[in-house]
C-alpha cells in the first residue's frame, strides 16, 4: 500500500483488481466492524452486555481476507475475534447485536453461547466454540466433503497465533496437506495470547514458518493493509480452487483493545507499546490511502459515519427490543427433533 501510494496515485482501478466500489465496501466493513465493536464496549460499560471480545486492530486482516472468498459457495470457520469477517460475509449489525445481548433471534446460537461465538447457517459460517483451534479441523473437514462431493468450495479457518500451538492446528494442517484439501488457514497474529507475548508462545518469529512442516505455502502478510491481505488470500484461494491444496497465511495485526472486557492489558503491556500500536491503526491508514488515490474525501467520510452510526443505533435498538429466549426452550436442540 505504501508503495502503491507514490506509483499509482492516478489509477482508479487499484490493487488486487478491486474496483472503487469494492474498495468502498471494504472500508465500509472495516469501519462498521470498528463502530459496532465500540458500541459493544459502551454496552458493556453500561452494564447491558456482560462480555465483549474485540476485533479492533484486526479489521483490515478480517475484511481483506473475507472479501477474497465467495459467499455463495465457500465456508468460513471464524473465531471469536472475527466481527469483521462475519460482517463482510453477510451477517448484519442487527444480528451481531442480538448475539451480544443474547436474544432469541441471535442467529449464532439463540443466546446460548457467549457473544462472538459466530455461526450462521444461511451465511455459510460454521458455528464456533470457546476451546481454541478446534475450528481448524472443521474447516479441513468441510473442504474434504467439498472434494468428495465434487463441489467448488473453499473453506477457511481463522485463529490466533497462540492457537497455532494447539495440537489441533498441527493435525489440521497435516490432514489438509496430505489430502491437498481446498482450505485456507488464516492466522491473525496479534502477538499476544491474552497476556502471553509471542516470544513465550513459540521460538520462531513467524507462524508462516510452520508451513514448511506440511509442504504447503506459508505467507507472511501485512495485516494492517487490507489490499495486501486481499491479494495474498486471493492467491491462496485460487490455488485451493485449482486443486493445489491448502495455504497458511500469517497475517500480522495489532490488538488495540484488551483481550476482552474482563482483561486489562495495561497490566502486561507498556504504555509506549500500546501507543505505538494505536498509531498503526489500519482504519485511518486505509482511509488516507484511499484519499491519496483520489477515491475518498471528507464529505464521503461524513456521509459514511452518519450512515454507520444510524445502522449501529438501529442494530442496538433492534436488539434491545428483541425478545430474550424463552426459558422453556432450555431443553431444545440437544438432539435433532
Amino acid at each position, binding site marked *: 500500500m505504501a508503495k502503491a501510494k507514490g506509483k499509482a496515485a492516478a489509477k482508479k482501478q487499484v490493487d488486487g483488481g478491486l474496483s472503487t466500489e469494492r474498495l468502498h465496501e471494504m472500508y465500509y466493513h472495516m469501519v462498521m466492524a470498528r463502530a459496532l465493536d465500540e458500541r459493544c464496549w459502551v454496552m458493556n460499560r453500561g452494564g447491558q452486555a456482560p462480555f465483549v471480545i474485540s476485533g479492533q486492530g484486526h479489521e483490515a486482516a478480517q475484511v481483506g481476507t473475507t472479501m477474497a472468498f465467495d459467499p455463495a459457495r465457500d465456508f468460513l470457520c471464524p473465531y471469536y475475534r472475527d466481527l469483521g469477517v462475519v460482517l463482510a460475509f453477510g451477517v448484519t449489525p442487527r444480528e451481531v447485536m442480538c448475539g451480544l445481548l443474547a436474544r432469541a433471534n441471535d442467529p449464532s446460537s439463540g443466546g446460548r453461547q457467549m457473544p462472538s461465538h459466530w455461526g450462521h447457517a444461511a451465511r455459510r459460517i460454521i458455528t464456533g466454540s470457546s476451546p481454541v483451534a478446534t475450528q481448524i479441523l472443521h474447516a479441513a473437514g468441510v473442504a474434504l466433503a467439498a472434494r468428495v462431493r465434487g463441489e467448488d468450495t473453499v473453506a477457511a479457518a481463522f485463529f490466533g497465533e497462540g492457537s497455532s500451538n*494447539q*495440537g489441533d*492446528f*498441527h493435525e489440521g494442517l497435516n490432514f489438509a*496437506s496430505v489430502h491437498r484439501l481446498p482450505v485456507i488457514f488464516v492466522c491473525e497474529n496479534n502477538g499476544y495470547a491474552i497476556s502471553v507475548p509471542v516470544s513465550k508462545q*513459540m*521460538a520462531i518469529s513467524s507462524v508462516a514458518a510452520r508451513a*514448511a512442516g*506440511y509442504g504447503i505455502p506459508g505467507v507472511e502478510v501485512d495485516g494492517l493493509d487490507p489490499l495486501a491481505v486481499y491479494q495474498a488470500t486471493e492467491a491462496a484461494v485460487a490455488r485451493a480452487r485449482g486443486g493445489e491444496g491448502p495455504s497458511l497465511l500469517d497475517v500480522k495485526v495489532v490488538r488495540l483493545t484488551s483481550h476482552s472486557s474482563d482483561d486489562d492489558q495495561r497490566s502486561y503491556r507498556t504504555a509506549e507499546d500500546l501507543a505505538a500500536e494505536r498509531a498503526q491503526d489500519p482504519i485511518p491508514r486505509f482511509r488516507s490511502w484511499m484519499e491519496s488515490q483520489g477515491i475518498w474525501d471528507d464529505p464521503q467520510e461524513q456521509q459514511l459515519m452518519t450512515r454507520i452510526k444510524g445502522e449501529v443505533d438501529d442494530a442496538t435498538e433492534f436488539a434491545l427490543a428483541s425478545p430474550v429466549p424463552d426459558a422453556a426452550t432450555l431443553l431444545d436442540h440437544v438432539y435433532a427433533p
Partner: protein
Amino acid sequence: MADVSEGLTPEVLMDMYYHMVLARVLDDRMWVMNRLGRAPVVYSSNGHEATQVASAFALDRGHDWVVPYYRDLALVLAMGMTPRDVFLHLMGRADDPNSGGRQMPAHWGSVDLKILTTGSVVTTQMMHAAGIALAAKLKHEPTVAMATFGEGSTSQGDFHEALNFAAVMKLPAIFLNENNGYAISVPARKQMAVPDVAARAQGYGIPGVVVDGNDPIKVFEAVRAAAARARAGEGPTLIEAKTYRFVPHSSDDDDRAYRSREEVAEAKKHDPLVVFEQELREQRLLDDTQHKAMLDRAKAAVDDATEFADTAPDPDPSTLGRHVYHEAVL
C-alpha cells in the same frame, strides 16, 4: 563443542554391536514364542537396532532419561535392561520390572535405568520427555531426556505441542524419530506431505537433522551433538533416523497386505547388523571367531532368559487392586 564421535573406542564399538546382535536374537526368539502360543503379542525392534543402540550409547546412561515406545527393545537393552527382564515382561510374570505383568509386552519402564514407563497411546511420551527436561532445567541438573517415536506418531497433536513447548523453553530434550516409513499399514506419504519429518523442526525454531538410521556411528554422532547442545542450554533437537522395519508391525499384523516382498528384500540389503558387521570387519575389530563368540554369547543369554521366565511365577490375582494409588511403605 566436544568431538561428537569422541568415546567411540574399539571396545565401545564392539559393545554397541553386541547389543544390536542381542536385540535381534532376542527379538527372533520372541516371535518363536509367539508362534508357539507362549506370548500373545510381539512388537519388534528388528531393523531399528542401529538407531536404538547408538542413540542410547550417545547419552550419559545412568544419568540421562529415555522415554521410549513399544518399538525400542534394542534401546532398552542398551540402557541396561537384561534379556531376563525382557522375557519376564514378554510372559507377563510377577517379577517383570517394567510393569509386573500389567502391561502388554514392549511397554518399557524402569526407574533404575531411567527408562520412563510408557503407555500404548502414541506420542504422549514426547510430552513426558519435555517435562523431565523442564524439571532438569529448573533443578540445574545436566540431565538430558530423549523421547523416541515413529513417524506416524508425528501426526499427533502431542508431537506439535511437545516440540513447541520444549523449543520455547529451550529444554534439554532430544526428540528421536525412528522413521521406518510405515504406521502399521499406512505409508509415510499418506501420513505427511513432506518427505522428511525433520522439516517440521522449522516450525519450532530448532535444528532438524536427518541421519541414516542404519549407520550407528552417524546416529551416535547426531545424538551426541544434540545432547551437547541440550546440556549447553541451547534447547532441543529433532533427529530423524531413516530406518525400516523388517517384520510386520506386530505379531497380529500381516505386512503382505500393504507392502511387496521385493520392497522388504531391498531394504534388507541395508540391514544395520550387516552394515555394521562389515564396518567392524573392515576396521579389523571383528573376525569370524569373534563374530561366532558374540552370537553364541547372545544366544546363551537368550536361552537363559527364556528358561528363567518360563518357570517364573505369574502375578498373584489378589494383587489386582494394588498400586492404584500410592502405597505407604510400612
